[in-house]
């Protein structure tokens, strides 16, 4: 693999695309400099970015709910396509998929935005702190019913998903552990009438020490500590994050990542760096690209200007709406991205993107001139298009009478090649 291939790989998997010309610049600096800049942007002189929602001031008006909701999630897609710190944003997306908090359940945009800021601020920090913060985050307390759970009637929803989905995975805990966690986590309440402030109400909490994963716990701090210190935690998180970026990963590789992740005190930058380096070293399989990364990469490569509402509409029809994972298991996977509905929607979206790509865009020039290798390289496939797609592009541009550049660009974006990273 050449440096160009390696950088294109990192840009597809961890950055979700590059603007024209960036691949050349990064190739000169080299692969390890790129990984450094991704994992530690501050050291590379890339300034801290403010929240995509820093200047949002929503009026609490149900009539405006839909408009404001669209604006909220459109801002996120804009930020993803414009950020100079892409990794902290793709990792935040991973946590959005991991915790899977949905605005449809939370039903309060400022609270949802706080949650999204939280997973972005802590997403590349310390895993224990991230989980501790999420456990008493207003959005999560509403999402998995912590706010209605009391010592007298503990609600197990958060306790169960905390163990199964967020920290350890199935097979590493018992039903008794679920109950113990539920009891120890009681007492945290979202006060909707006080601007959705989170409060700890001692009389709703059951302080009786509970046996949990072989230790005694009586509050949220001890539950988070015990779970994060459990032997299964580093491997569970390392495996899931590695698969997010790399596809299938060998048990041996995950084991090594987990060991270093644990030794670092569950430091996520260590883990993410190991994952990216493993990927460059060949520990990776082809991945089916989800709709959000597909769309962000297409926008970056073409400079297309899509009206905000339409952008969310396209994502919805492809089956992945920011802010709305369909279940607590997160966004669906490969079978949904390959489903007929997503395939049809991808064709439509590709046509739309090509249509609103500026006439001056490199992508459109390359497509109009039949520079297929150049177009593939711009779309971060430096090895060129597949045989089938190449033949289809040639036939289309030879046979189509109207707007051949736009048609070829649409086809390239819709092609199966772009669905595989």
């Amino acid at each position: 693999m050449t440096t160009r291939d390696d950088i294109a790989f990192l840009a597809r998997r961890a950055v979700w695309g590059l603007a024209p010309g960036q691949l050349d610049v990064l190739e000169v600096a080299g692969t390890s400099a790129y990984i450094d800049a991704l994992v530690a942007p501050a050291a590379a002189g890339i300034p801290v970015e403010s929240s995509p929602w820093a200047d949002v001031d929503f009026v609490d008006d149900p009539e405006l709910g839909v408009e404001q909701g669209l604006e909220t999630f459109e801002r996120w897609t804009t930020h993803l396509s414009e950020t100079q710190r892409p990794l902290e944003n793709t990792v935040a997306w991973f946590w959005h998929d991991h915790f899977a908090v949905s605005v449809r359940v939370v039903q309060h945009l400022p609270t949802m935005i706080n949650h999204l800021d939280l997973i972005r601020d802590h997403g590349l920090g310390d895993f224990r702190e991230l989980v501790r913060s999420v456990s008493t985050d207003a959005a999560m307390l509403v999402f998995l019913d912590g706010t209605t759970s009391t010592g007298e009637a503990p609600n197990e929803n958060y306790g169960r998903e905390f163990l199964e989905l967020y920290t350890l995975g199935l097979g590493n805990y018992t039903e008794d552990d679920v109950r113990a966690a539920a009891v120890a986590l009681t007492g945290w309440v979202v006060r909707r009438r006080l601007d959705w402030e989170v409060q700890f109400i001692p009389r709703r909490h059951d302080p009786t020490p509970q046996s949990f994963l072989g230790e005694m716990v009586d509050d949220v701090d001890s539950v988070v500590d015990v779970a994060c210190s459990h032997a299964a935690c580093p491997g569970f998180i390392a495996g899931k994050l590695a698969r997010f970026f790399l596809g299938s990963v060998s048990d041996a590789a995950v084991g090594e990542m987990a060991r270093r992740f644990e030794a670092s005190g569950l430091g996520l930058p260590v883990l993410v760096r190991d994952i990216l380096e493993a990927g460059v070293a060949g520990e990776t399989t082809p991945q089916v690209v989800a709709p959000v990364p597909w769309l962000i990469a297409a926008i970056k490569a073409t400079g297309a200007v899509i009206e905000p509402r339409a952008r969310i509409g396209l994502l919805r029809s492809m089956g992945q709406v920011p802010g709305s994972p369909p279940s607590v298991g997160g966004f669906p996977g490969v079978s949904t991205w390959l489903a007929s509905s997503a395939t049809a929607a991808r064709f439509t979206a590709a046509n739309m993107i090509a249509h609103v790509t500026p006439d001056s865009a490199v992508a459109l020039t390359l497509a109009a001139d039949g520079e297929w290798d150049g177009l593939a390289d711009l779309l971060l496939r430096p090895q060129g298009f597949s045989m089938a797609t190449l033949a289809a592009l040639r036939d289309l541009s030879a046979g189509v009478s109207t707007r051949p550049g736009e048609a070829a660009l649409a086809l390239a974006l819709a092609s199966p090649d772009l669905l595989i990273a």
Partner: protein
Amino acid sequence: MSNKHLSRRTFLGAAGATAGVATAGGGVWAALVRESAEQSVLDGIGISSTTTTTTTHAGGTAMPYSDRVLVVLEMAGGNDAINTLVPASGLYQDARRDLELPAEQLITLRGTDYRMHPGLAPLADFWNAGSMAAVAGVGLPGQSRSHFKAMDAWWAGTAGTPSQTGWLGRWLDATLDGINDPLRAIALGGGSRALVGEHALATVVRNPTDFSLRTFPNMDADALIDAFLATAEPLATTTELAAAQEAIPATLEAVELLASVSGDGTQEAGFGAGARRGGESAADLLDTVAGIIDLGIGTRVMAVGVSGFDTHADQLTRHQDLLADVGSGLAAFFDRLAADGNLDNVMVVTTSEFGRRIQENGSLGTDHGTGGLQFLFGSGVNGGKVVGELDLANPVQGDLPVLLDTRSVYSVALDWLGGPTDEILDGPHDRLGLVA
């Protein structure tokens, strides 16, 4: 400024103008659809071996297996069995102090100790006619309280470690004969994992009301769609890329099919507050299913998924809405089947990955449980009865005991399709007297 700024209205207008692209285009996929339609016509008049595989069912008419359709309605999230089929027991009132359904609203089920949730009232006629049955206290060996583990097991239809294939996918594999037609099995809205086979293809449409290929009016739509189809061949050697390629012709066929059943597909779903959790209603999805059945293109299995049954909080209202959608949706579906002359060809089976805890949880909801509930509908069902029991008196860790294996229900369903059944479900499993 050279940037073109596209307004949503322009785009939707364009979409409206070209929504007929797939139907008017008449490409290769249309020929494929016609081919499969002709195939099923031949099957229907019994030219092939179908004459030897007919049975005589309750009505006395011989119905070839090839005319029979199975619809599996997945109620995802874990439907609360006890508030759906309410046991006549004081233990019910004890467990459900806040969630108890008022007795006067419940639907009496003749000859049983149960009454039904008012949302299912439109189905009472089917019960009384003996074409609706309930299976109570049902699950799989080692039934899990985890959504994901339980769903995996229910889709797989295997005990122990779930297989990579689904129970319906294995049936599609076993009956694969000649052309691998992806329209033989269609999932709408969800439940598609049960259709995963090793070889057989299936069509998966998450959102049928927004399913079309759109181009702009000034573009050569036919050329673009033909070129899109051309990217599918030759198949790449990489598995993932090949899968992305194979999805394209299957999609074009399915677009064609659904366009002919349900109009132009430009309808927009709601967003944000007030929108249904999990997408389209059972009523809408089932209406599309009825349309596909009436096309008679050889679709044998349809999975329909509706979600939102994970009622940890505010259960009374939510469950009412969900069951009313299912109840009225199914009743309308059967009405349409009857009007089209297809009613006797269809069996419907409901699934849900688990039942909920017997005791309510203090948040006006219920937590994950184990023992669950299924319904079966159709002329092939020996109905009007509850098989099994929602046994409140003998809870296991606070849950309804799992007394019956859902592979029994699956067996009835696969028998309806003509099997083979036992090898697919690691049987034989007791048919529980549910076959008419």
